[in-house]
Each structure stands twice: as C-alpha cells, then as structure tokens.
C-alpha cells in the first residue's frame, strides 16, 4: 500500500511547516517564554538547525511534567499577547492534570475535521447534542464550535469524568452507574424535545447506554461522532452492527495536547480496526519502540504512541503518550502514517483508570 500512495509531497509540506513553526516559537518577538528559556539552555540554535521534521529529534522527548502545574502563561506565545486565552486540561486520571493553552487551535482543528464528515450524515443546519466530558476539557468548546461551524446549535449535557474515576476508585460502581444514567436521561430528554437534533457527539459507554433506551435512528439521529476514551474494534463492530441501525459512525482519537485525528472511513477489509490519521502538518503521530522510543516500529507492528504538535499556539515535540497502537501505512485519503487500534499503553495500565465514562 505504501508504494501506491504518494507520500513525498506531504512530507515536504510537513518539513516546511516545521521550519515555520520553529521560527515562530524561537523568535523572541513571537515565541513563548517556555521555549525561549529552553533555547538558552541549548548549545545550538533551533531556528538555524531544524530543517525538517526529522531534526526535531534534537529536542529529545517532551516531558510530561512540563505541563503539570507552574505558570501557565509561560506557554502563551508573545505573538498572541493580545488574544483571549483558554486553558484546557487532560483527563486528570493521572494526578495533577496537564494544562495546555489554546486560542484558536480548537476551532481550526475542528473546522478541518468538519471537512471529513459526510454532509448527509451530519447535515448543515442540523442541531447537535454533545453528551460527554465538559468542564476544563476542550471537547466541550470544540464540539459546540463544530456544530456552529456547520450552522447548527449544540445542546450540552455535563459529564464530569473525574468524578466517575473517583467513584470507581472508591469501589462505588453502583453510584457510577447511577451517575451515567443521570447523564443519559438528560440526553434523552433533549433528544425527545428537540426534533432538529440530528447529530450526536458522545463517548462509547454513553452511546451504549443511550441505545439501551431508545433507537437513535427513530429519534432522527443521522450521524454519531464518538470519542473521548479508548475504542476497541469489537466496540466499533458492536456499534455498527447492533446499536446504530445504519447511522453514520465517526470514531475519533483526539486529545488536548494533539488535537483531533481523523478516522479512516469504514471498509470491511479493515475488520472494524479503528484507524486514525493525524491532522498533518499540525500534528504528527508516530509509533515507536517502547524500549527505545527513538526507533519507529515497522508497519503493522505495535509500539508506543509518540505525538508531535506543531501549531503557532503550541509546540510539543515528541511526547510519549500513555497509549499504544499499531503503525498504519499511509492511504490514498491520508498519505502519511496513521495508527491502528489505539489503547492504553500496557506497561502503564496499572496506574491508569481509563475508559470509564
């Protein structure tokens, strides 16, 4: 497959974009305090020596704790001093959450993602229901923006995943179940009361819970955008074969740090594997050897996910995610590397409560 897909042009664009982003972040007039300070500790000048994506290895690996606590303003690029700034947080299932600032990125990412959604399933002008994590997560604003970008209005139901995680850790599965039902009931009330809701964003577990109560198709839903937690091929198959009655299903992989990956449209040959491609050139996903994360694994091989985010708002080179996946070859729609069946990194699993909401 790799041989049939033209990968040279995207790679050149990526290298050019990397140079542009490095110049922005390491220019004292536009860069953020964190990277400008970091540059002082280097014996080389990123603006001179980073010529392309491969050269980012000179930065080593982005450290998780850099985003946990401290002055969040050190991440705001001087080039955006006058802009309103949001701060988004990761799930919070691993101690102090990681924080990331955002200005327009979530809008840009979701507008790009919008172009991958089929209009017949997510009609322009149709309203949305977002039933999932809210609070400090970017999903809350991002899904609403997606709806608005497609000229819809987004109804929202709150879900606090940190409370769910806490209930699980307190060995209170019944209470967690009651909380889930509380969220689902609110969603159902909105779906029944507003005929123009055609599009749904929700998490895998909430989608299951909704479909236990109603037929989403009968309620007029035509497209489901699903994400927020791990999704297995079996869940994908179950959703398509048993939950959705032919409703278009868009599984996604995204996070606060990277943005939003795009799913490869379903074909039977993939046997419900969930395949994502990063939003090049704004982010890159690689799969690396967990024991030697400098090494990219071969196509089809399993490894740890390494993220690189390349936007003017946020530069995050080579961050080792808490996920693992198989490396997926480029395809004609997305002629660059993707990932297959992302799931929690098995070597870290004991420390992480995941997929509970």
């Amino acid at each position, binding site marked *: 497959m790799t041989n049939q897909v033209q990968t040279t042009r995207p790679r050149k664009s990526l290298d050019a974009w990397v140079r542009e982003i490095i110049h922005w972040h390491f220019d004292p007039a536009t860069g953020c305090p964190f990277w400008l300070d970091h540059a002082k500790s280097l014996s080389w000048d990123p603006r001179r020596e980073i010529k392309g994506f491969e050269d980012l290895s000179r930065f080593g690996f982005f450290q998780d704790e850099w985003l946990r606590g401290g002055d969040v303003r050190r991440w705001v690029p001087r080039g955006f001093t006058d802009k309103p700034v949001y701060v988004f947080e990761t799930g919070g299932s691993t101690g102090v959450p990681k924080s990331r600032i955002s200005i327009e990125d979530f809008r840009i990412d979701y507008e790009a993602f919008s172009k991958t959604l089929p209009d017949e399933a997510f009609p322009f002008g149709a309203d949305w229901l977002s039933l999932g994590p809210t609070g400090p997560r970017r999903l809350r604003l991002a899904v609403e923006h997606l709806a608005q970008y497609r000229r819809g209005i987004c109804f929202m139901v709150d879900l606090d995943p940190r409370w769910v995680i806490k209930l699980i850790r307190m*060995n209170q*599965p*019944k209470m967690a*179940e009651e909380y889930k039902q509380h969220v689902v009931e609110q969603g159902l009330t909105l779906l029944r009361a507003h005929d123009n809701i055609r599009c749904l964003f929700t998490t*895998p*577990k909430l989608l*299951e*819970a909704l*479909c*236990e109560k109603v037929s989403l198709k009968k309620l007029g839903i035509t497209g489901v955008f699903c994400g927020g937690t791990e999704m*297995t*091929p*079996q*869940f994908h*198959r*179950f959703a398509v074969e*048993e*939950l959705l009655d032919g409703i278009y299903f868009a599984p996604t992989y995204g996070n606060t740090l990277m943005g939003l990956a795009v799913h490869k449209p379903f074909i039977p040959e993939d*046997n*419900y594997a969930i395949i994502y491609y990063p939003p090049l050139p704004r982010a890159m996903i690689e799969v690396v050897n967990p024991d030697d994360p400098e090494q990219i694994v071969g196509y089809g091989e399993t490894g740890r996910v390494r993220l690189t985010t390349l936007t003017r708002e946020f530069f995050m080179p080579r961050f080792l995610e808490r996920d693992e996946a198989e490396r997926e070859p480029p395809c004609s729609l997305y002629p660059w590397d993707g990932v297959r069946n992302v799931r929690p990194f098995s070597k870290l699993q004991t420390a992480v409560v995941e997929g509970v909401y």
Partner: protein
Amino acid sequence: MLHIPLLRKGEPYKSLDVVRVPHHGMGEVFVEISQANGGLIRRDLLDQETGREALSKFSCAELLEICSCAAESFMNDALAVGDDLQMPEDYVRQVSATTGLPHVLVRNNMRKIRGVLAEMKHVLDGLTRNLDVQILDKGFGEIEGQALSFFPRTQSLGVVLPSNSPGVHSLWVPAVGLKIPLVLKPGGAEPWTPYRIIQALIRAGAPREAFSFYPTDHAGAGEILRGCGRGMIFGDTASTGVWKDDGRIEVHGPGYSKIVIGEDCIGEWEKYLDVMIASIVENGGRSCINASGIWVPSHGREIAEALAVRLAQITPRAAEDDHAQLAPFANARIAESISQNIDTALMQSGARDVTASYRDGNRLVKWRNSSYLLPTIVLCNEASHPLANREFLFPFASVVEVEQDAIPDALGASLVVTAITSDSKLVRRLVSSPHVDRLNLGAIPTNVISWNQPHEGNLFDHLYARRAFQQV
C-alpha cells in the same frame, strides 16, 4: 487455533476482542477466547424473557430428564467447543493445560459434575425440601392440605465463576432444573467446564436460548451481576467485597474450612489423620471445602508433626500421572507471592512451618518449568496469629491449639466444619453458630459434600420466593 466463542442465548459469537490463554507449563498460547464487551452484555440482558420462556415450555420433570441425559453426554460424548469437537479426554487435557490441574483430578471433578446432573432430582429434593416440582410448573399447588405458591425472583441467574476447580460448577447447574436461564462468566483460565456443561445440556434437549456464556473482564462481570435479578460470584475477598451487602448476589468467597477435634476424641487423634490429610490435600487443596485449619484443645504439636511427615511425601508429578496430587500454578508470580506471604507471617512469633523440617528445600519449587507450592503445615500457638485462619490455593493448613470452650467463637466464618466430638456442649455451640455454613458431625472429610444441601445459601431460596395463596 482453538477458539472459544461467546454464547449469546446459545448462539456462538466470535468477538474481535480475544484473550489468548497460554499452556501453564509450556507458555505458548493454547486457546483463544472471545471476550464480551460490556455493552454487548447489557444489551443482551435487556431481553431475559426469551430464555425464561424457552425453559418454561418444559416441565420440571422433563428438565430433570434432560439433566440426566446431559450427565452421560458430559462424561462420554464428543461435544462442540467452538468450531471443533471435544472428546472427554480432550476436555481433561484442556482443563489441565490452562489451569495446571492434573488429569486425575480433572476426571474426579468430571465425575462430580456428572453425579450432580444425573442425580438432579435428588439435588432438587434437598434444596426444595421435597417440594413436588410440579408446583413450580403450575406456580401453585397443595401439599398435605397446605396451599403453596412459588414465584421466580429473577428471569436469569448470573454467575461469575472461578478457575480453581471444575467441581464448583455443580453449584449453578441445578438452576436448569428450576427453570432459570443462566448467564455465565467463566474464569479466565477455565472456560472449558461451563462450556461443556452447556453443550451437554443442549445436546440432551435443553433450549439453547437458556444459556449465555460471556468470557469478559472485571467490568463485564459487574454488568452480568447488575443485569440479572439474581447472581452468584466466586472469588477472593477483594473481588467479591463490593457485592457482600447486595441481597441479590450470593457471595462464594474463601471457605476457611476446618476440622475441630473435641477433648473427648483428641486422645485418639491418630485415628483421624487420614480424614485430616484428605481434607487438606484432595483436589490439590484448591477448593474452598479443603480444610485450612485443624483446631484442637491439645496435642497440637504431635498432630502437626504427623501431618507434616505425611504431607512431605507429596511431590510434583506429571499432569498425566494418576498419582499426581499437586497442581502447578498457571501464574508463577502468584505462587511466589503466596509463599512470601506465608514467610512474612511466620516472622511473627507464635507460629512454625512444621513441614519445613521434613521436606528437602523450599516450599516453592520449580519442576518441569512449572511452579509448585509444596504442602505446608503451620503450628500456631494462638488463634490470633495471622496464619491461624488463612486459606491458600494449595494444601495448606494451620494446626491451632485453643481451649475447647474458646473454639466455637474463635473459628470465625467457616464454610465447612467437621466436628469430631460427642461433647454435647461443643456440638450445641457449633450447631447454633451462625458462622458455620456446613457442619459435619463425625469424621467426615471437609471436602465430602452432598449437593442436595445448601452451600453458602440455598439456590432454591435464592431463585424462588413463596407467596401467600388462596383459591376457591
């Protein structure tokens, strides 16, 4: 590769999520088991009426006949396991491969299950106190002028099963005779027995819709117990604790089964050595009905020494060896952890590993690539010692010397107590103890049990309730 599918109301379903279970000794993948996602289980459990209606079409008498035929089929026939056929000897080899249980012990358990299926009428007579089961067919009836009516408390029985020993499956099988469909979550290393029992019952004429079989994870097990009106869970205190206050769920945790010898019989303790050995060792010491404590008012040291001498002769043997008595641990780290726990507790004064003096080397041994824990007898001077009331997954027992008057209170919760005594006061106190689940009076090994007796609850009472009933 051999693949075990889910059964969704009896229909095989091959999941895209699979767990590959290795051979306990050789390490290579032996079987691939489909895993049910939680949503699939929840969705299936939205319709529990289909299974119940399918069973209701049969009279209890017909179902008892089906159980009887299934007994022979389970024991002798080639039955489906996924897309393959499983001969009885394949079953024996497969159970042994993933659990470590020697073939001879698997065969013993097979006979136990066969017996329960074949004698289902006798089992139900015991559980229902000789109720005419036609009353369950009709819902009401009359016995000796008394009007009786029973109704099912549930549309299905959800059971979260262990991997320790196939014999445990004898406990849920009577639900079929009681017309209650089953939703089973097998133990991770032992899908073989529940799958084979289901296939035998279907072969014998039971409706397949009455059987759901969901290998799944911890969360999936929770979905089964939450989704079924009545449930059973087997496991250690940590995994069952969350259900202990839920009246819908029968919790089958550690047994802490014991032998008690009274002052009147203790002078003849040597007469009971075989009963003690059998209670500790049979079935590889892996059952909740194996004795993990010998409680005596005196002669503790002599008893511990005598047990140790006999038990030290037990060593690992090949799985195929008819004299094998020990099962290796499928997960070597569990064996290491158990042995370390015992050693740590022994550092506290008041207890001694008596077997250590009689065996060559350590308790934990590696033999033919497998980890074994050799039988262990610990002598405890006080009932409060951390090892006095412990249970492990191998032949382990503490000999605890306590004044006779203190024994009934000191025993704590005990699944089986074999009391070797004629002392009326001691007997009376054990009979009235709420902590003793099964009581044997006399020299009956703790692991010899009648299936027509309640076991950590009466299955009939769990599944049915009696209502007031009048008719003109």
